[in-house]
């Protein structure tokens, strides 16, 4: 049935079963190569420890460098004050994007 061409295949008037309602469930997580932030060693899906202490879990997002490595945005912000290189690959740190 996978190659059924018609989009409205589910609505043929003669067919026995028609899907009327679909309650689907999906899970989201950050699109990262490594689940753990190498700076604070907390899972990136969880807020970093500092944000947890401040109860700012919702604001703790992930940042990706051009090297494709990712960390908590706040962890990286503190890190670059000391050293403007990626802690994992030592390349100069250039932000590719942040999550939202």
């Amino acid at each position, binding site marked *: *049935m*996978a*190659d*059924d061409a018609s*989009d*409205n*295949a*589910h*609505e*043929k008037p003669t*067919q*026995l*079963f*028609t*899907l*009327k*309602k*679909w*309650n*689907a*469930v*999906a*899970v*989201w*997580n*950050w*699109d990262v190569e490594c689940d753990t932030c190498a*700076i*604070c*060693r*907390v*899972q990136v*899906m*969880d807020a970093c*420890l*500092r944000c*947890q*202490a*401040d*109860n700012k*879990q919702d604001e703790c*997002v*992930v940042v*990706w460098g051009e090297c494709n490595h990712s960390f908590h945005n706040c962890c990286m912000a503190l890190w670059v004050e000391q050293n403007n290189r990626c802690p994992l690959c030592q390349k100069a740190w250039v932000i590719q*994007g*942040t*999550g*939202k």
Partner: protein
Amino acid sequence: MIRCIFLVLDRTYVLQNSMLPSLWDLGLDLFRENVLSREHVRERCFFGLLNLIKRERSGDTIDRCLLRNLLSMLNDLHIYHTMFEKRFLHETEESYSIEGSAKRSSMEVHEYLIHTERRISEERDLCLACMDHSTLKPLTLCVEEQLISKHTEALLSKGLSHLIVENRIDDLMRLYKLFSAVKDGIQSLCTHFNKHVKNVASLIVLDVSNDHTMVQDLLDLKEKLSNIVTKCFSKDLKFVEALREAFESSINKRQNKPAELIAKYVDQRMKSGNKEATEVELDRTLDQIMMLFRFIHGKDVFEAFYKKDLAKRLLVGKSASVDAEKSMLSKLKQECGGMFTGKLEGMFNDISHSKELMAQYRQHVTTKKEGKVPNIDMSVNILTMGYWPTYPPMEVQLPSYLVKLQDSFKDFYLSKHSGRKLSFRASLGHCVLKSKFKNGNKELQVSQFQALVLLLYNEATCFSFLQIKSDTQIEDSELRRTLQSLACGKARILTKSPKGKDVNDGDNFNLNTEFKHKLIRIKINQIQLKESVEENTDTTERVFQDRQYQIDAAIVRTMKTRKTLSHQLLLTELYDQLKFPLKATDIKKRIESLIERDYMERDKDNTTQYHYMA
């Protein structure tokens, strides 16, 4: 008479000469010296008096008037206190010492208590009627000593458990009252009470064969005992604490299981269909549950199991009452703090965010006018990974129009949220299928797996197990359970050949074209997988792994507010904050790890002092 004659003289002359004794006193002195100083006379007199009292005690009616006059005479003669009272108390002590031992072994404890109470009141009665009132105190003390103090241990070990088990409110009240009169009586009672509760509660907790009633049994026990403390032990704080301590120690004699069962108990109350309870009753039940929850040392174990059930209730929309869910959450928050409930709250937020997002998505679809999106009412719950229990992804083969629908939503979602990955969990979805049977149209409420199987039957009326498996790609054991539910349950939409409960590789499944059902809307129940021991150990295991991380978070939170703290004070704070048993060595390891990660540092001069590093 002599006194009367000389009364005038007494009043007028003697009173003015204070050196002289009054004639009345003179007379008494003479009587005392000449009559009662003679030992045998005095002895006979005392013997007679004590005998009279003995008879009264044994139940005879005596001439109380005579007794009172004689005793008052002794008082006037100044030998009541110096000689008689001592003898009397000694006699009393001996007689009650014998009686106490005899009655204690011949009577049931509650009879003995009644007897004792009666004795004390009889003695009081006699004393107030016939004796100098100053005797009341030593007399009562003496009786209490002989009848209660000497037997506290024996009475308590022989009778307390029985009285509590039988819920003998009056007898227990009497016990408390009598024991509170003697030194250390209440303390012994309290110790025995605590021991009894521990015995009974531990039995409930440790009896593996009665796990299904453990929580209800504990709740009933607690209610009964609290009632006894209130009614019989006058809400004495010592007893309140003894009860609390006994429950806490008993419930923690078994690891994890009580926490798990308490969570299950809440789930049963919270599920819809539990119509027996009104909102008010439900809230009361939740309060009682919280009382048990408070005793649990591994509160995070409870949280893990609670979360699993909560997830099911939220995703299947099976919750009896949103208010009750929120109320339970706030009770947990109040008890354990926001740290503890953060992820649970996150689950509720996910559900409400999903609703908002779906509204936006529908708007988006209608304005987009792509046209080709199938006319299916789709809603998606988007779960934040980490808030919810982990659900392993299971790839399945969807009909192409569903893939399209799914992708359309996914594109929309990712356009709103960058940097995210979204993956569907077919095992959690559920559907409504319209169906046209020969015997009438039906609306089937099914799981997504059940729906995927049934949709195959639009193409043919018979499939083999292996065909279904390759067409849907549903995981093997899931598929077998799904087919069982469709072909072996109450509403059989498929027929299985050969017949039988177990699904085997060679089985064929035919569409039951003759399907009949008295209802229009039919819910096809899924075969509930009994939560395996393995699954439960898994949950507890994850809890233990999570503890390290909880410790880290608590240390950082504490150091961040306190900036500088000694090791000891930090430990104290942590014990206070964390809701599971902690070992000092584990905490030390976590502190080392945090120092290494530059969250904190040791003081340069004082190694037991830490500073927070911003």
